[in-house]
């Protein structure tokens, strides 16, 4: 039981971290919370189901296409809805919340209420030290999630694009004065944030098939992780994601599965009480 809960927690935590990184990136740069984040996760799940299952594409191609389309959708949303709200944080909250309801209802009409599942990448299960059998699909998901997170860190920490992004999130005006096109950075990083939700979606949807409203829980978990890790902190997301993954896993194993998300909320309240700036955040002035 114990070791199974640990492995489960690590798998979920990695994917949660991936989804939360998308939120954190956008918060750090634009000070905008995308309340439709979970719906982009679901969108990627539906796309990969559509391409791989209904159209019969190879799984890898379907996943890449799904994430690319979600990136494009994110860019479109930034351009059409978020850009006019610069300088007014409240409207971006309202707009993305309405967008999430619109998307949930659109999914319901297009794909119906029943779960849709893209095909598995691998078959079978692995025996863990004669303790338990663990699905290979979940192990591959863990590896894929870790790989995408690694790639993101390389992108942010070592490339030219990453420097521009970090400069913008540290001091927007100074970045502008040094010739950074911050509006362009907003556009690309919002798309990238959505694409990260999409990556989490394509990785996790073979394990947890997608439904029109399943995105709410994903988004909430991501938000809690972002607050726990500290708004805008990327390392905070990785640590926070693993913490939340393990807490949920142990909570579900030893307390109650129905109340899995209650633990998230308790953690959120605890963070707000004890250290509102989160584990890795800068304390508020």
């Amino acid at each position, binding site marked *: 039981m114990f070791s199974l809960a640990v492995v489960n927690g690590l798998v979920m935590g990695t994917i949660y971290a991936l989804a939360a990184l998308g939120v954190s990136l956008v*918060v750090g740069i*634009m*000070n905008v*919370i995308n*309340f439709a984040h979970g719906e982009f996760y679901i969108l990627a799940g539906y796309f990969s189901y559509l391409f791989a299952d209904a159209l019969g594409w190879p799984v890898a191609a379907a996943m890449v296409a799904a994430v690319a389309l979600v990136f494009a959708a994110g860019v479109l949303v930034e351009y*059409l*809805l978020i*850009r*006019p*709200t*610069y*300088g*007014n*944080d*409240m*409207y971006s*909250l*309202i*707009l993305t*919340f*309405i*967008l999430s*309801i*619109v998307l949930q*209802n*659109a999914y*319901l*009409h297009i794909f119906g209420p029943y779960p849709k599942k893209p095909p598995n990448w691998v078959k079978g299960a692995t025996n863990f030290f004669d303790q338990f059998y663990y699905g290979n699909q979940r192990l591959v998901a863990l590896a894929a999630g870790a790989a995408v997170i690694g790639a993101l860190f390389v992108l942010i920490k070592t490339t030219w694009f990453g420097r521009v992004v970090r400069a913008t999130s540290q001091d*927007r*005006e100074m970045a*502008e004065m040094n010739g950074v096109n*911050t509006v362009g950075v907003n556009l690309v990083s919002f798309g990238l944030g959505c694409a990260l939700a999409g990556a989490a979606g394509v990785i996790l949807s073979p394990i947890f098939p997608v439904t029109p409203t399943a995105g*709410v*829980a994903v988004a*909430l978990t991501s*938000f*809690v992780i972002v*607050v726990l890790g500290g*708004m805008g902190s990327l390392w905070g997301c990785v640590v926070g994601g693993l913490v939340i993954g393990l807490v949920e896993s142990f909570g579900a194993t030893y307390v109650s599965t*129905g*109340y899995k*998300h*209650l633990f*998230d*909320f308790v953690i*959120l*309240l605890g963070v*707000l*009480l004890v250290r*509102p700036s989160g584990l890795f955040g800068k304390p*508020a002035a």
Partner: protein
Amino acid sequence: MKRLRWRWWIGAAAFVAVPFGLDSYALHVAITCLFYAMMATSWNLIAGYTGQVSFAHAAFAGIGAYTSGLLAVKAGVPPWIGIAVGTAAAGAFGLMLGVLCLRMGGIYLSLATLAFSEILSIVVQNEYEVTRGTMGLQIPGLLPTYSKLSYYFVFLAAAVGTVWLVVRLIRSDLGLSFRAVQNDEAAAAASGVDVVRIRVLAFTVSSALAGLAGGLFGHYLLLITPTLLSLDQMFLVLAMAVIGGLGSLWGPVAGAFFLEILSEYIRAWGEYHVLAFGLVALVVARFAPDGLAGLARAVRKGPPAPGRPAPAAGGRS
């Protein structure tokens, strides 16, 4: 001013006289409109006047309804007392969440209220032995005899009371502080306004009013289900306030009547009406952020809304 008061009386007379000419179905729609008017008006107090977005307004209505309903069913408490307790409970939860989140700024309140709302609906659905879950909890009526007309007047009184309270708050010295906080937090703080306290006060009052609306509506419907505190319900209230016009007194009331009556007309579309509302709300929030009230003002060529900056293009604040 004189002419305005004159219009006022016509409106009041219409609200009192019209229900006598309505059949039972139309009365039900009118009562539902008044319920949503209370919800949208009280949400407007926090969103429109202090610029903080709460996603737990439906959840607070649910707290009001379930507190009063459970007290009546399990302990035989009279509904009037139950509703008062439910209102106080919603206010108390609002106070706690507000104190926790509001010193950190708006985004934290939005996140925490969204989480709170989801958790509450999970709890209500899982504790079906107490709440009867999605089956719904049957609760006694507010009035000894069931008469839609009487309920209409109860809701009318409550809605007028809600609007009155919000107007009083906004037009008081406190209201000036509200708007100062919304316009420019730093400047308000520098002028000696206790920003956090203003926000917490607005949020607590707004939550308590949602609890009142929910409690009354539960005892009118006689059956409360988790849909009362769902995010879909929250979305309806938000859409009404946004389409009507945030930061205006009559906007949310007009929005509530407009959307509720519209939804009765397009009921035939079934499930599509939430999608349709969503698209309309999205277009309004994007292109006419002052809603119907803003459009009306533009038509009358009056001065722009006091105290609410239009979303400006260009760098973030």
